[in-house]
């Protein structure tokens, strides 16, 4: 095998990409464009009549280059690929701030009822009254949970919901005639990357607020940054250190006093349902990740849904469309901007992620008000139990208890030659997905662990035992176990630098062996 100067191979071992080779239950599988054929298809259709097209010289003259598979080949190809994924159904998924909880299959079943899955967004509203009622019911639950005034359902994911909240804030400031003046958005250092990216996309300047030694917003710095040019603060609560901001009410009051608004990132709503309502904390806008808190699945990176709740201060500025009841008691959609003069606009085509609305409402009804509170209590209990079990072996970033996730730094690895990355990759060999790493940025070599409420005591104990054993192995000098990890996964560590330096972003015959 040829190697580069860093000892990394420069060519793939060709035998490894052949579908003929594999072991036991983990078969090797080539790319679609290697296993498929341009003349194959797995779909039978009605015959063509031979009618001439109306398209003249705009008709395609070349083949597409697509390859096809028969149905048995397609099943085998994608089932084999599926075997190369970790999943919540396979094991604990301790990704902090991602809330990887169980996905109830009832919700999948309900989302596929033709009355929801097979209706068109623009068919007459008289033929989709059940769908509009579902949106109303979902809104009712979200507003009860948060205590807020209204909810915009259309945002398609968390970051899109952030945009919805910040555009509502921008519109409110514009209505007050202060847009020229209020340019600055305060964003704590511990925020998700989407927060500063969203504020910037809405045309604001970012002013970063450091965390104090206890992982909370530094109160003095916060006060010093307030002024007539501040538009808003974007705060995650509980924050990404897994801590509730005890000063949150004071922060809200002060930002309001200075004429700004309070955006709360709802990524960590799972910790506080039924324990407090964000409206009582002084929040003006918050997106809710239905794919986290309400378990509409993550699906390998989406689709999500980011309904955004708004306070009475912002409710008028909500985007179109929204549901309203007409004089005859029928539900209607307000879709035209002319019919919603204060609205800041439209965020996407149609009405939002209906498929996720069905799943989220089913999740909420299954749990009920009592169960949602239990969800948050168990999520926090599980995180604290795990923290208690491992705190003497790893190094917690802060003393005391946490909310639904626990943050550690890499102090416990000091002198071992093992990095946070190595430690996380070693978890793979033990059968676990790594925790969130190097985030939040407020502690060195961060490891952020969120077990969620759907883990049993036995599962938590097994995970805690594994973490303690790994920590002890690192401290006792078994460096290679970590720096070489993973060795039991379908692949060893991947060369990300190579991928970025010489991007190969699609299949091309001549690039497969370079």
């Amino acid at each position, binding site marked *: 095998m040829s190697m580069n100067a860093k000892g*990394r191979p420069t060519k793939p071992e060709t035998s490894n*990409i052949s579908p003929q080779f594999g072991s036991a239950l983990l078969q090797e599988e080539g790319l679609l464009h290697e296993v498929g054929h341009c003349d194959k298809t797995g779909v039978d259709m009605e015959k*063509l009549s031979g*009618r001439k097209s*109306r*398209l003249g010289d*705009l*008709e*395609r003259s070349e083949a597409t*280059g*697509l390859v096809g598979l028969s*149905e048995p080949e*397609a099943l085998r190809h994608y*089932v084999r*690929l*599926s075997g190369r994924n970790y999943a919540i159904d396979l094991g604990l998924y301790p990704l902090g701030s991602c809330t990887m909880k169980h996905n109830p299959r*009832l919700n999948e079943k*309900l989302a596929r009822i033709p*009355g*929801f*899955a097979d*209706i068109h967004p623009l068919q007459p509203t008289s033929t*989709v009254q059940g*769908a509009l*009622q*579902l949106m109303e019911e979902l809104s009712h639950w979200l507003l009860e949970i948060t205590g807020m005034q209204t909810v915009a359902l259309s945002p*398609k*994911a968390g*970051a899109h919901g952030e945009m919805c909240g910040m555009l509502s804030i921008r519109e409110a400031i514009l209505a007050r005639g202060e847009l020229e003046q209020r340019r600055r958005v305060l964003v704590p250092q511990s925020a998700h*990357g*989407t927060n500063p990216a969203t504020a910037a*996309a809405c045309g604001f300047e970012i002013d970063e607020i450091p965390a104090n030694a206890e992982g909370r917003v530094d109160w003095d710095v916060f006060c010093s940054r307030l002024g007539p040019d501040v538009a808003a603060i974007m705060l995650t609560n509980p924050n990404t250190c897994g801590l509730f901001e005890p000063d949150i009410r004071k922060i809200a009051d002060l930002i309001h006093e200075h004429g700004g608004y309070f955006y709360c990132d709802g990524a960590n709503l799972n910790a*506080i*349902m039924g*324990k*407090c309502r964000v409206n009582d904390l002084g929040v003006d806008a918050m997106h809710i990740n239905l794919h986290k808190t309400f378990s509409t699945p*993550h699906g390998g990176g989406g689709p999500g*849904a980011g309904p955004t709740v708004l306070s009475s201060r912002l409710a008028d500025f909500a985007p179109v469309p929204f549901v309203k009841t007409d004089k005859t008691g029928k539900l209607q959609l307000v879709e035209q901007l002319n019919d919603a003069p204060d609205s800041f606009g439209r*965020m*996407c085509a149609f009405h*939002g*992620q209906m*498929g996720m609305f069905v799943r989220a409402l089913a999740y909420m*009804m*299954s*749990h009920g*008000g009592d169960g949602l509170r239990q*969800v948050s*209590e168990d999520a926090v*209990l599980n995180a604290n139990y795990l923290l208690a079990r491992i705190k003497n072996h790893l190094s917690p970033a802060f003393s005391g208890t946490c909310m639904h996730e626990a943050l550690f730094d890499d102090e416990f690895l000091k002198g071992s030659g093992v990095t946070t990355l190595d430690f996380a990759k070693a978890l793979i060999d033990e059968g676990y997905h790594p925790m969130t790493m190097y985030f939040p940025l407020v502690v060195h070599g961060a490891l952020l662990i969120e077990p969620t*409420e*759907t883990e*049993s*005591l036995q599962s938590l104990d097994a995970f805690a035992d594994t973490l303690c054993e790994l920590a002890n192995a690192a401290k006792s000098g078994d460096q290679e176990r970590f720096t070489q990890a993973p060795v039991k*996964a379908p692949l*060893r*560590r*991947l060369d990300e630098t190579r991928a970025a330096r010489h991007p190969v*972003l*699609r299949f091309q015959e001549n690039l497969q062996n370079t």
Partner: protein
Amino acid sequence: MRYLPLLDEDRAHMLKTIGVDSVDDLFTDIPKCARLENGLDKLPEHASEPCVEQHFSELAAKNINAGSVPFFCGAGAYRHHIPASVDHLIQRSEFLTAYTPYQPEIAQGTLQTLFEFQTQVAQITGMGIANASMYDGSTACAEAVLMAARITRRSKCILAPNLHPHYAQTTRTLTHTLGIGIEQAATAIGADTDVMQQIDDETACIVVQSPNVFGEVIDLRALADAAHAKGALLIAVNTEIVSLGLLKSPGEMGADIVAAEGQSIGNSLNFGGPYVGLLACRDDKKFIRQAPGRFAGQTLDAAGKRGFVLTLSTREQHIRREKATSNICTNSGLCTLAFTIHMALLGDVGFRHLAKLNHQKACDLADQLSAIDKVELLTPMFFNEFTLRLPKSAHEVVENLAKRGILAGVPASRLFGEGIMDDLLIVAATETNSDIQLSQFATALAEELS
């Protein structure tokens, strides 16, 4: 409670290990004034699986689903047949319940399918590369405009008059905060090529949809040349991706960026979402650096085996924060998988056959409908969707036909508001329409108008 594994005795044991007396001791940071002592007592209590199922069945029964009637709605969302194996495969736990593939060693299933997806999208659009998806076509369109503005360092954007109004509004909402000036002439069938006159030296891009919202197929070649002559980019929008099985690709006609809705392949109507946004562009470093969203890229592992990773992430929010090219994080993962599997089942042969069949059905329907007295076909060059002028309000006709059990299309007034084009009806036909349904529609429309 069926989703919560802890027993009360487990909870007691855990509290003891933590060293607190009650679970409320873990919530003491919540200000006293904000604590909910009685929880969410205004919401109903937890419900059994059959109870929940019953409620949802009742709600669903109040909707008329497309498959139960002759159905002709399009305007950005299309009903196509999805092979049974697609839905089976995307429900495999390993795909359905996986997270974003940030740990490539144990996410090759997702990463390889994303790489296959990117390849398929690049192939059908005729573009060099494609990203790993956006939320939907409309947000892809807005992101494409921002991308074009960064590439050209210009801030004027011209939207073709017949760009889907939801796309135009979304683009305006998501770009005006960054100083993008949007220009768009009033909608008018046949007017899309007029944008050529608006292009000047400050123009970052023109955005042209083909087939457009009325179903008209647009020749993009002269538009591309006109844009390029002024240093501007052509963004081609497509809301019915099946059309690319029969039409010259936007890439072949000179587009620089393609923003499209991929729902037609692998994804149900779902009342408007979740769908899958496609974003493809020229294979040019300048373009790739300014592209939004995720890319899966090929690389090697430490043992020299080929593998895939999320790459070029220095453009993205989790690395770049406020300097990111977009704030997008979660995109349309599982919808891209459905797209990829459906497209793999179709292959070139099936995809092109599907497109021809759609065109043929629509031609047959257009012939039958335009033969009705006082019904005029306004868009002679179409793929699977066309616009008719009716002798009365299209909204009224659609409502009346719905009562007779036919979903007859989308009145233009639903998209543009009442008052300007009340007599226009946008009608789509796909391979899911039987020949009998076509004639049922024609008969019913003739009766309604007589």
